[in-house]
């Protein structure tokens, strides 16, 4: 069959033989596609590790009273679960894996602007992960502060906080360099004819993300260094006994860590936009509105950190201003959801697995977004602050939003990345199971939180037992579904090149090259003559 192909096919980036062989052909490669896969494999590994920790936590909460572990073990477990999932899986998220793979291809370039820096970012990522791991398994035990490292407890606890905090600092550095690389790539490497408003919307969302990575991460970087200095040099920046102010720590921490939520979710929204447009077989509705809403989210997201601190003792004015700004973020988010819906309207929708994943994303993200308004409003937040309600909301946004979008993107671009197609029927069934499991796991937490069950406790009052049991059962369903998803992807079968080059009828540049792409992506740099989603171009 391959011989019948009209175009000449180059060896793919997976088969390409450079000057290195074996594992060195991967860890010394500066090819953005190989680096993307390095990121993706490490992220999925950390995701599974975090998943196992989550399962143990749910198992502990299956019934009131101690089940498997001591309170201290539970404290360590939720801390390391948070560190792993946030810093090692979802902050690099879709940007480091799919962004790395797709940015150069979607803008018609051969690689990112700084390929060596790109590889260096991955090294830093792994270094940070190793430092955190050493912190977990050495010294006086894994940290028990929660992933937020709130002072003054993070200064007082005997556990191994310094290494975890320093690991997070190194990971931040990696994130900054990736963001920097992407901004320069998007500015400098676009193919002739590809103006900013001809870029696919996934690229726009990554552009907004890259700016957040660049402008927010240094603040938390220096804050983490101050915590390290407080512990090692006894300075007392955040120690009230030495004049420090713990609330200042919270400000500095959330100045980064709230925008970090948008680092997680923006590329997810971008990938969903691509998927919905492709499977609706229509031009995207409101291209400029979606592009600008990405930048608006990035910008407004920078100004809302105070909503994490409504009960920390800020002034009434500050709380109201932060609450108001928080509501503002809902506007660009809603613009996206409405535009997705409008894109589907009267479209010729093909119900392929990536599209179902995108639907699951929208449904779950809506619940997460609307419950976010409950937390963003000062009066209701005080009732549910630090309860399971927050945990539920957070997981609906970050796992149900960004995490599901990660798998949606994986199903969408899998044929492009590997030249293989998974079993679509299994993919759909696994998604349905995941959807049921996810909601069984997290929906009860909203009610538990509303009824007053605090988060981060390994035990609870008897009246919370039924809902907690339901939630634990949900965790089993969800984990099983995730295993099916991954096995199904691993068992994908090689398709003919004609089928794999553009299995979905996509219209952005990545679907115009061979699957898997050649080392150089394009043998000739394409000239772009139209808007990204125009149907006539096919």
């Amino acid at each position, binding site marked *: 069959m391959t011989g019948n192909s009209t175009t000449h096919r180059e060896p793919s980036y997976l088969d390409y033989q450079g000057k290195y062989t074996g594992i060195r052909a991967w860890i010394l490669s*500066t*090819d953005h596609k190989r680096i993307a896969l390095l990121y993706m494999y490490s992220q999925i590994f950390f995701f599974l590790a975090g998943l196992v920790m989550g399962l143990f936590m749910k198992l502990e909460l299956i019934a009131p009273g101690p089940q498997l572990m001591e309170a201290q073990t539970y404290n360590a477990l939720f801390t390391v679960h948070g560190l792993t999932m946030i810093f090692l899986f979802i902050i690099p998220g879709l940007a480091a894996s799919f962004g790395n793979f797709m940015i150069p291809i979607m803008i018609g370039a*051969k*690689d990112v*602007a*700084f*390929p*060596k*820096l790109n590889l260096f970012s991955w090294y830093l990522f792994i270094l940070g992960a190793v430092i955190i791991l050493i912190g977990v398994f050495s010294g006086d035990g894994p940290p028990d502060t929660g992933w937020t490292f709130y002072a003054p407890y993070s200064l007082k606890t005997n556990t191994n906080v310094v290494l975890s905090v320093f690991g997070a600092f190194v990971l931040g550095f990696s994130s*900054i360099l990736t963001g*920097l*690389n992407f*901004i*320069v790539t998007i*500015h*400098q*490497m676009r193919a002739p004819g590809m103006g900013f408003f001809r870029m696919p919307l996934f690229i726009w969302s990554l552009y907004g993300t890259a700016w957040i990575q*660049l*402008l927010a*991460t*240094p*603040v938390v*970087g*220096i*804050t983490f*260094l*101050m915590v390290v*200095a407080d512990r090692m*040099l*006894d*300075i*007392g*920046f955040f120690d009230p006994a*030495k*004049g*420090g*102010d713990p609330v*200042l720590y919270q400000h*500095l921490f959330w100045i980064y860590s709230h925008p970090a939520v948008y680092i997680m979710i923006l590329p997810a929204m971008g990938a969903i936009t691509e998927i919905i447009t492709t499977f609706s077989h229509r031009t995207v509705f409101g291209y400029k509105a979606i592009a600008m809403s990405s930048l608006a989210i990035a910008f407004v997201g920078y100004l809302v950190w105070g909503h994490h601190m409504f009960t920390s003792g800020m002034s009434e004015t500050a709380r109201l201003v932060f609450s108001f700004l928080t509501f503002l973020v809902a506007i660009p988010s809603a613009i996206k959801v409405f535009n997705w819906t409008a894109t589907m309207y009267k479209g010729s929708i093909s119900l392929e697995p990536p599209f179902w994943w995108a639907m699951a994303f929208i449904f779950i993200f809506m619940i997460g977004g609307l419950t976010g308004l409950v937390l963003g409003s000062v009066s209701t937040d005080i009732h549910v602050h630090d309860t399971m309600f927050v945990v539920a909301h957070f997981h609906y946004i970050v796992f149900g939003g960004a995490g599901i979008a990660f798998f949606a993107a994986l199903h969408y671009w899998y044929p492009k990345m590997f030249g293989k197609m998974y079993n679509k029927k299994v993919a759909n069934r696994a998604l349905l199971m995941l959807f049921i499991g996810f909601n069984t796991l997290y929906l009860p937490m909203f009610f538990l939180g509303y009824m007053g069950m605090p988060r981060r406790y390994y035990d609870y009052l008897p009246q919370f037992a039924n809902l907690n049991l339901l939630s634990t059962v949900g965790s089993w369903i969800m984990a099983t579904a995730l295993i099916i998803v991954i096995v199904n992807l691993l068992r994908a079968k090689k398709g003919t090149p004609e089928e794999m080059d553009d299995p979905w009828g996509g219209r952005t540049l990545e679907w115009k090259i061979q699957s898997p792409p050649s*080392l*150089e992506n394009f043998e000739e*740099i394409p000239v772009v003559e139209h808007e990204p989603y125009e149907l006539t171009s096919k």
Partner: protein
Amino acid sequence: MEQNHTEHTDHFDPVASKLGMWLFIFTEILLFGGLFIVYSVYRFKHPVEFHLAHQELDVTIGLINTIILLVSSMTVAMSITALQLGNKKLTLILIAVTLLLAAVFLVNKYFEWGAKIHHDIYPGSEFLLSLSKGDMLFFGLYFFMTGLHAIHIIVGMALLGVTYVKVNNGTVNQNRVSLLENSGLYWHLVDLIWIFLFPLFYLIH
């Protein structure tokens, strides 16, 4: 924008590397920005203690170091012009002078810190812990911020050192000044941060 069709990694775009350097400088400014916020908050809370504590610092050494960094910023700027004009020998001399000035800065810093530590003023010392909270915060910030700045001096020196070698062997030349320009930019940043640190710690009124 040129694309090299034969060799995958050999892509050279001076505009891109300069843009990258500027973005990196933004992140450095934000890194120190976090510290300036912390400084402002604590100085606002302890104005009197900060004023009294600053009198312990040696304005003369601070001033000398300020002049040293300003001159080194000038020499590095001159080295860029020299390379653009194709004068390799002068470029090398000017980079060497910059490196020398940076080393003098660090030596001064060493004696300054040494004197403080000799007087038992360092983070966590018993003497410092017996002082007021404002004093502890002032000296904590002083050591942390000037220390972080000194690390940046060392990084800048390493960068200029690499540039020196590359100018010497000709990889950085009249037609390819990017690396020197970017090292120069970084050096100006290091200088600029000191311009803020000097009045904040030495010249409080």
